[in-house]
């Protein structure tokens, strides 16, 4: 039987993991909730963030990579939106799903062509390399940094949505885009911006996850499924729903290892199924594109 220390250790680890999952999912939920598209290219944008960091890490260092890589990924997101995704607005959601799925496939191949098939390792910054003795457990210093960074970025996204006038327009656009446009706001530019921000968030999650999970062409698949499950679990388009969903997945995965390690990869799907039985729109969800 696991001890209290075991529960505490795995609980802390679950929260840290949950913050990372929330960060991976937040860009995905923004696009789904605000623009109404299921962006299957989210995973490849996550991978691009990691690969840009891999390229920039050695020459410019981790902190520069943490800022520049998401900006580059955001720019790529804006190009994707302007060239392709915007043609799908107002059409069946399935079209955009197929389009972004195609972008994800070609993006992964592009990564193979540019960076090769071989996986790569990215070192964590020297000051957080190795582990720290917390008294009751040894824990990775980098994961503590990851928790702080993830929480900070989530807070900044919340500030943008809740405390800025543009954030208010974005949220209003999610509710009634025609009314927002009628009030003189450029809805097209808003969608491009949201797609760019969502992409940059995928990119920053990729940079932060890279020293943990290593960098491989197929790593986007590691992000897309948890992101989708968390968004559905937390509620489509809900900021807090995504944060709660991410933490719930992180905690359940971590605690499952104590009792049923073989189930640790399944537990997030079981959790989502159970939650959806009682809250069909997720924990904090409202009517969404998935119901159209």
């Amino acid at each position, binding site marked *: 039987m696991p001890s209290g220390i*075991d529960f505490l250790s795995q609980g802390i680890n679950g929260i840290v993991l949950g913050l990372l999952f929330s960060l991976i999912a937040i860009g995905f939920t923004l696009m789904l909730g605000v623009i109404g598209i299921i962006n299957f290219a989210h995973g490849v944008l996550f991978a691009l963030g990691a690969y840009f960091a891999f390229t920039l890490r050695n020459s410019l260092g981790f902190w520069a990579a943490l800022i520049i890589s998401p900006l580059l990924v955001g720019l790529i997101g804006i190009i994707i939106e302007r060239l392709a995704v915007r043609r799908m607005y107002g059409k069946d959601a399935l079209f955009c799903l197929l389009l972004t799925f195609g972008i994800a496939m070609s993006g992964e191949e592009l990564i193979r062509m540019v960076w*090769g098939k071989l996986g790569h390792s990215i070192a964590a910054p020297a000051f957080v390399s190795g582990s720290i003795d917390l008294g009751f457990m040894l824990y990775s210093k980098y994961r503590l940094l990851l928790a702080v960074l993830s929480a900070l970025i989530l807070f900044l996204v919340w500030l943008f949505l809740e405390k800025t006038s543009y954030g208010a327009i974005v949220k209003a656009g999610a509710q009634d885009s025609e009314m927002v446009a009628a009030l003189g706001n450029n809805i097209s530019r808003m969608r491009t911006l949201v797609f760019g921000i969502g992409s940059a968030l995928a990119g920053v999650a990729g940079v932060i996850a890279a020293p943990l999970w290593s960098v491989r062409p197929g790593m986007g698949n590691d992000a897309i499924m948890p992101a989708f499950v968390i968004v559905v679990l937390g509620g489509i388009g809900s900021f807090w729903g995504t944060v709660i969903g991410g933490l719930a997945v992180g905690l359940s995965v971590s605690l499952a290892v104590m009792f049923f390690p073989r189930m*640790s990869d399944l537990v997030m799907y079981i959790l989502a199924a159970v939650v959806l039985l009682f809250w069909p729109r997720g924990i904090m969800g409202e009517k969404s594109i998935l119901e159209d």
Partner: protein
Amino acid sequence: METKDDKGISRRAFLKRSAAGLTILTVSGVPTLLRAQQPSIKIGAVIPLSGNYGFLGASERCGIGLAIDEFNSKGGLLGRKVEVAEEDCATDAALAIRKAQRLLQSEKVNFFLNGGGSSVSAAMADFAKKEGAVDMCIDPNSDILTGEKANRFFFQVPPVNYQIAHTIAPYVAQNIGKKWYYFTHDYSWGWTLTESCRKFMKEKGAQEVGESKIPLNTRDFSSFLLKVRGAKPEVVMVNVAGADFTAMVEQMYEFGLHKTAKIVIPLEDFEDAWAVGPEKNSIFTLMGVEWHYAIPGVPGINEFVARYKKLFPRASYPVPTTNSYNAYMGLRELLRAVERAGTLDAPKVIKALEGHAVKDSLKRDPTLIREWDHQFVQDFYYFRPKKKKDMKDWTDIYEYVGYGKGTDNAITKNLSQARMEKLPGE
């Protein structure tokens, strides 16, 4: 009386010249022309180019290319060119069988090679038997492939887990530590490797203090690493492979597991070790390796490496890996068997393979293609991480420790579940 045609050549002269011309053509050019028109000998390669073992395919392609080049550069085989038709199995058994079926029906391949993990190869073993097509299995190591799945059409090139554990586990128990914790990849290959390690661990007086079964495609191992600390092992045996393994090594390094326990990997692929880099790979105390491009005192190995570098100057990996080696050895021996048999007829090729001893195995001892389970019985090596100052380049990360002979460590007939069927006409 001679008759002349309109151009002044007599019929007899015409017939003589025609006969002479035909003779010359027969002796010299025509057979070559006819041979050139003969269809190629086609090898269907169902290998992993995506999925958890996607990186192996890049190595295997090079090994296949080396074997084919060896035959085509000397004029082909049985007067025919050898070529490969390749399909990505994506580490998916059902997909592999669909692709193999297509290769057989549309491409009319003569023989198969397969890789992509034990579940793919187990399915391919059944497929080979059902279709009566010879299949050389070039990357997985699960015991079922030479046990319950063994059949006359299926040949297992790499050593299987029983032999790997028999070589590594006694060495670890005697030289590294007695309290073992297992990380077991949760599928056939991982289970059988842990099971075999357990058997030899107990025989040498070591004890198990825990096991975590790792689901395939796990990316975050932090919870598993916190759990293992509680068991206080002396040795952590890592029976995990592929992309999961590289992520796991990153996190073992991050959590400093190597500071509290000796970490041993009974079977490591170069591709995985290179992906994590020399520093993180140095967390291991011992690594089992099927083959190495610089095993000391092995004839022919330098020439093999030189040929690889010449043929693939821009390959993903600058030196051949164990997976290039296995693909090369499997295909080369298959093609040599065709040459010995003088035919593409599967039963005759099988008989040419069975019991054959490969003297130029590029290992210390000859490799035997065992008749009763179709295992390529061969040496298995163990290495430790090389010190940074001794490394010549980024690929040079292993330092030779020792090896075990296949004939001493491979499973014996009385313990094996292999039950071979009779071939048609036997």
